[in-house]
């Protein structure tokens, strides 16, 4: 299979320029890059159809091997139409970007940046004791209905939060172990509903 060297060189140059252009930040250049890539590919498909000079049309005297292959040309036509549609759409997007932002540039994803800046410490998942959010606060541990007191409330604890249990204070971390069925610390909950909420 012989290939036209000029077309091959042109194809290579188009690919090189196209790849260079789509790496740019300006949208118009990206579009030009995509168009060059599509055209380079069209030349590649053309090259698979064999060399120039073969019979394009039917003639009863021509031997079967002397005809040009029509299939690559049909493929190229289809791909030209497709790249035309995409180019038109990209132009629409570029115009819209210009209307909205007055700039012809690819913009950063704000949410991406925000997630990247999020510290690995998540207050809800990683803090020592999560703020009680359930409908059933741990007030059953207290006798006076005060339930959980956070460190911000004044009653300071070593690790931030303490729970008043009967007549002594427990570290918040240890309350879970106290909540056993047989634990002496568990007394019937106060009659009034809820804790200090």
């Amino acid at each position, binding site marked *: *299979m*012989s290939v036209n060297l000029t077309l091959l060189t042109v194809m290579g140059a188009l690919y090189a320029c196209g790849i260079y252009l*789509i790496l740019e930040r300006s*949208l118009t250049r*990206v579009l030009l890059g*995509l168009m060059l*890539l*599509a055209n380079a*590919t069209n030349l*590649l*498909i053309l*090259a*698979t159809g*064999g*060399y120039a000079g073969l019979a394009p049309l039917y003639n009863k005297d021509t031997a079967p*091997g002397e005809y040009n*292959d029509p*299939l*690559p040309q049909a*493929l190229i036509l*289809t*791909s030209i139409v*497709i790249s035309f*549609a*995409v180019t038109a*759409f*990209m132009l629409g*997007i570029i115009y*819209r*970007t210009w209307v*909205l*932002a007055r700039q012809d540039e*690819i*913009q950063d*994803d704000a*949410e*991406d940046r925000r*997630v990247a800046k*999020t510290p690995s410490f998540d207050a*809800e998942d990683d803090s020592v004791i999560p*703020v009680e*959010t*359930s409908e059933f606060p741990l007030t059953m541990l207290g006798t006076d209905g005060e339930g959980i007191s956070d460190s911000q409330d004044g009653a300071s604890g070593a690790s931030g939060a303490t729970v008043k249990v009967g007549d002594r204070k427990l570290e918040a971390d240890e309350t879970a172990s106290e909540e056993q069925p047989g634990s002496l610390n568990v007394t019937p909950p106060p009659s009034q509903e809820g804790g200090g909420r």
Partner: protein
Amino acid sequence: MNIASFAPLAVVLPILGAALTFLLVRQSRAQRTVSIAVLSLTLLLECWLLASVWGGGTSAVNIGGWLPPWGIVMVVDQFSSLMLVVSSSVSLAVLIYATGQGMADGDQDAPVSIFHPTYLILVAGVSNAFLSGDLFNLYVGFEILLTASYVLMTLGGTGPRIRAGVTYVVVSVVSSVLFLIAIAMVYGATGTINMADLALKLAELDPGTRNLLHVMLLVAFGIKAAVFPLSFWLPDSYPTAPAPVTAVFAGLLTKVGVYAMVRTETLLFPGDTFNTPLMVAALLTMVVGILGALAQSDIKRLLSFTLVSHIGYMVFGLAMSSVAGLGAAVFYVAHHITIQTSLFLVTGLIERRGGSSSMDRVAGLAKLSPLLAVLFFVPGMNLAGIPPFSGFLGKLGLLQAGVQLGTPLAYALVIGGVLTSLLTLLAIARVWNRAFWRKPEDAEHPDPVLLADRADSARGVRAGKSNVTLLPRTMVGSTLGLVIFGVALTVFAGPLFRVADRSAVEMLDRTPYIQAVLGEDVPVPVLSQPGPGPAGDQPAGGQERR
């Protein structure tokens, strides 16, 4: 009568419907009726196609009467018809959801009237890609669905959507160019683009050339399917689109890429040349994807990352190239299309009810809307793979196949699969805890609509329009329908797994596919010896190489 003669209707009907809805741009009621009717008709047709190949058998139709190696062929087998039925059911549910949303908001303006024709064209593109029996028609199918998806992605033309649309369009066009280059090289090397013909002729090529073509096709499909190193574009672009659009994209578009990868691996390049790199890619896709999901605070972005992550399971099943692995992958694709779409639809409802899809803003929905909580919980647990749901069954099938294979890499993937499943559960549980279980007062920035009085909380105020129904019955109904469809996949998992296994047997055998396209008397080389295939008495190649 050849059943496949009706297959082109699955493509033609939606296109005709699109033309008709385009004429009815001004009458939104007629437009809705036409598009729902057309899609239902297509779904019925595809169910009939599936029923006719359920027990086995592959049939092909030559479009326009051109004989196989030259003309366009459409092939109906179990895998393609199963994909058609699942994808059309999902698209129908999403369409009803979208019309419900349009009706509830009273949208009469131009961008929404363009929704129906574009959506139908998207469906036509997906059907064309599933049915296509030659590479270039597959490319055309991809382009139809991609061009429609560009329009849907940027619907309304707001700032974030345009930004996301640029990423999406550029990446998709580059992957399409790669695919087209691959097609040109395949044609240059073999002189044909008919897939059945290629299955015979690629085996005769020199291994170096064959590997090059194989890699080109895998990279092009890998971008579309969002396999790990090529998945960067997906979480950036999907979440900004309107909820029904994201839902249908998440369900269908990546799966078309997976479908194309399955065909490439089983039909065109059988044997295990690239199974090891594919397995590594599958492992990375699963683990990196789910780790990304854990870092997100927006539900849509989180779901986009789980989508990427679960593509890894399908690639895993494909890379094992055993009947058990491939069968489980086919089942998993069907399961994942349904579940991922329903989760995105529910997220759309969460966004309507709770005012946002950010986990910092939404809270207390379990109390405000218990139905919504159930709608999220069932597919969420299904995605994480909690027994007895179909997600569990699909993962179980994949893990069993991995253990059967027994190589160290397969065991690594089995462990990675279990880990991914656990981390998916963690991600879903985070959404559940924050959006549904905690009190609105405890959210970082609770949306006002959550703190509103319960009496008037069924209706709210949205961007200049007063009294918008927050949870329209049509939207909830279609989501419920899709969730029930997902549960039905669990209930009927037995027959479904059997048909998936049968399709895996047929795909790995290749003979039914090739003989359905090229004729009964074509000898198909045995797989274990990928040596020179017999020239045989097949029709002469499409093109003499010069």
